[in-house]
């Protein structure tokens, strides 16, 4: 069909409307709690996120999973309310209470209509400050976690992630274990262990509360004082262990799943912490390698070869150096081809560096997409929460896009060469070893070892 005008060129963009990260009102309460309030009145809704310096990193290895389990078990009840009563009270407000525990922090989040914030915040404070961990409830939540661990063992994607973490890190590095722990470390835990963990880590000194939504700052101060004013204590800094690799040289680890129709592939090594000076350069580098749809990896493995539904690469920026990794799932028959192509993309990008146009495109993408991910109260709360978890300066988000725009091609290439190292990668493949072992060996990437699931 003929068009009535020339449609060949993409339209010229209109005038740019500026975007500023919304103002964050910060204050510190007498007990140390770091309070941050953002007014966002798009809808009559509010998100409150309490961030506790209670990440799994700080847990003793013999109790691995304690931070996660203690977070789960908060729903078990308080001296004033049983588990069922708490759930009814919160949900009667239309508010779910979500607890998320990662390596660096535990976050307790509640979202509800703004007019119900006072009641929701009081319940949140009760759950966090006065949990009783009744044995019946604690054991139930622990059994659910144990069942979840059993389930993980049969999900190929999760198995691949867990094995990759194990093969990348030396024994004793927390990141080498699953964040929610293992059967043998969770099994013996009790309510006493949770109480003791909370005593050490659920303290206002080291914690922060972010409130985002259709709210009035002055009222929030009063409300928070009423809910959290009597809370006391400070978190002792935990030891800073080194993040070290398991192996000195590249290896291929096959986790055998007989008859698997796909292979789950993970390729990675130890990366960098959130504090790395190369942070912004690495965002750009990773976008080019595997962090966008039009990344080199995705255009090759998916759009050129049809090996996979998708492939991505990612740095896990944490307080300590989290891993860098590539992940994908491919049809069994093309497993070695996919690994070869992925390795070749990593090597080529490292050797030649990205083109000027690629750097421009990647930078434009991350700069442009920044406001798109700040539309909701919970997205804003998570972003502001980062300031607390990683100790970032208050103007971090205000200058975020300028710092990205300042990244040069040379810096990108240099950061990539330094922090993405094909020769150091552990390559983990969860798939049918009988089908994929020989082709993987033929790639001569390093020693190939086959493991049984377990």
């Amino acid at each position, binding site marked *: 069909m003929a068009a009535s005008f020339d449609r060949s060129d993409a339209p010229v963009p209109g005038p740019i409307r500026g975007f500023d990260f919304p103002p964050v009102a910060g204050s510190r309460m007498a007990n140390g709690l770091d309070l941050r309030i953002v007014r966002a009145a798009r809808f009559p809704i509010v998100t409150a996120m309490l961030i506790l310096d209670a990440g799994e990193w700080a847990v003793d290895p013999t109790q691995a999973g304690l931070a996660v389990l203690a977070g789960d078990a908060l729903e078990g009840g308080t001296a004033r309310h049983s588990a069922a009563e708490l759930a009814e009270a919160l949900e009667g407000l239309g508010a779910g209470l979500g607890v998320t525990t990662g390596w660096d922090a535990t976050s307790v989040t509640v*979202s509800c209509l703004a007019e119900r914030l006072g009641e929701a915040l009081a319940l949140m404070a009760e759950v966090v400050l006065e949990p009783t961990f009744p044995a019946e409830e604690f054991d139930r939540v622990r059994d659910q976690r144990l069942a979840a661990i059993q389930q993980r063992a049969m999900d190929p994607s999760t198995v691949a992630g867990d094995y990759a973490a194990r093969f990348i890190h030396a024994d004793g590095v927390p990141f080498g274990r699953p964040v929610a722990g293992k059967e043998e470390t969770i099994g013996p835990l009790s309510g006493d262990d949770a109480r003791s963990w909370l005593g050490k880590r659920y303290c206002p000194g080291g914690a922060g509360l972010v409130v985002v939504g259709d709210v009035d700052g002055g009222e929030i101060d009063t409300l928070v004082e009423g809910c959290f004013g009597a809370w006391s204590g400070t978190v002792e800094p935990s030891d800073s262990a080194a993040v070290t690799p398991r192996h000195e040289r590249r290896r291929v680890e096959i986790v055998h799943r007989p008859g698997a129709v796909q292979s789950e592939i993970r390729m990675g090594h130890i990366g960098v912490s959130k504090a790395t000076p190369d942070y912004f350069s690495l965002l750009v580098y990773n976008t080019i390698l595997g962090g966008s749809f039009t990344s080199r990896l995705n255009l090759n493995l998916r759009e050129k070869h049809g090996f996979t539904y998708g492939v991505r690469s990612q740095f896990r920026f944490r307080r300590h150096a989290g891993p860098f990794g590539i992940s994908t799932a491919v049809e069994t028959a093309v497993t070695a081809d996919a690994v070869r192509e992925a390795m070749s993309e990593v090597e080529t990008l490292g050797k030649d560096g990205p083109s000027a146009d690629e750097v421009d495109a990647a930078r434009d*993408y991350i700069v442009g997409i920044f406001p798109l991910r700040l539309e909701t109260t919970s997205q804003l709360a998570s972003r502001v929460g980062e300031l607390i978890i990683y100790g970032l300066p208050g103007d971090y988000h205000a200058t975020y896009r300028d710092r990205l725009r300042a990244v040069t091609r040379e810096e990108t290439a240099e950061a990539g060469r330094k922090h993405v190292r094909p020769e150091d990668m552990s390559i983990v493949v969860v798939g049918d070893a009988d089908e994929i072992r020989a082709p993987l060996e033929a790639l001569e990437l390093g020693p190939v070892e086959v493991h049984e699931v377990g």
Partner: protein
Amino acid sequence: MAVLSIPVERHELDNGLRVSLSVDKTIPVVAVNLWYSVGSRNEVEGRTGFAHLFEHMMFQGSEHVAKNRHFELVERAGGSLNASTWFDRTNYFETVPSHHLELALWLESDRMGWMLPAMTQEKLDNQRDVVMNERRQRYDNQPYGDWDEYLQAMVFPDTHPYHHTVIGSMEDIAAATLEDIGEFFETFYIPNNAVLTVCGDFDPERALQLVERYFGEIPRGEDPPPLPGDPTLEPLIGRTVREVVEAEVPLPRVYMAARVPPYTDEGFYAAEVAASVLGTGRASRLYGSLVRDRRIAKDVVTHAFPLTTGSSMIMLWATGLPSVTPEELETALDEELQGLVTVSEDEVARAVALTETQLVRGVEQVGDRADMLSMFDRYFDDPARLNSEVDRLRAVSPGDLKLFTEGFLGTDNRAVLTYVPKGAA
């Protein structure tokens, strides 16, 4: 005061394209969302999965947009984009910084009007491989991954368009040809079979001019043909249908499903509230009973599908803890279903409060909001109906739930699908 008061302005182009404009200037972003009235229900025998494969082909370029260029341009603009295929519709959407609105309209209109000249066998072969890998990843290599294949076939007869899944069979995906692509495009990808929503930071007058410029000259097509098979069906299954699957799953799981009134029917609101009373949140009946009190389930889930053709479906599942038998799970689920004849005002109020919060959170982003507006436009010819949705949920009473339970949740309208770990049966 109403929780939602989203403004909507409606237009229709001469070629039949319906257009909704919803302005929100709080953040300089804008969403463009297109709903085509075509989904897996339109697929003919031997071509299951085709609507979804076609959706993939829509990203392979059009006459004036080379392969990969669509993604490159949107990403470079700082936008996000995707599409999804469902039983009754296929949607395409992008959210971009607001000064790139015209880019999104150009891209969407080019593939609505000028897709076919860009199609090649090579692209089709590539995307067939991609989709087959999507199927392997989501269905075949995933514990319980094929549950909907079983459940849909149990709830809907083989003459009904919901009998097969959106992903389709490997055999049918492999059989798709370029001729199929051409025919499907000409049949369904026409302006009078689509609605377009623009939501976010823009000037409505200017936006309408742009929509007219880019979409206006795409010719109206013939009305799409009636659905294949027989979309009418009895309101109830008529009995309890059972299936037991022994599979590589870690824990036993019991799924139950029932036919319920279609999403576009007033009777659906009771189904939605029932699903919430049963399974949303920790104060819900299934969580309270199976997970907290009796400690037989690891998790419970309920969902009322928003389907429009003949009947919709309510689905729930419970995953058993290791020592629990599927029979125990099924008995417990059955008791809770039957028990819904007696529901307190408080329980209904909680369910509605949770749904209300979810609804508001579900429209915070302009992309999600545009999609909801397109849906209400498509199904009700009234996008602004979104604003009063909470009122209709609030109107559901314990008495309505009693009637719904008696009418639809009995053993004469039930599919029971049980997964048993291999070797444990």
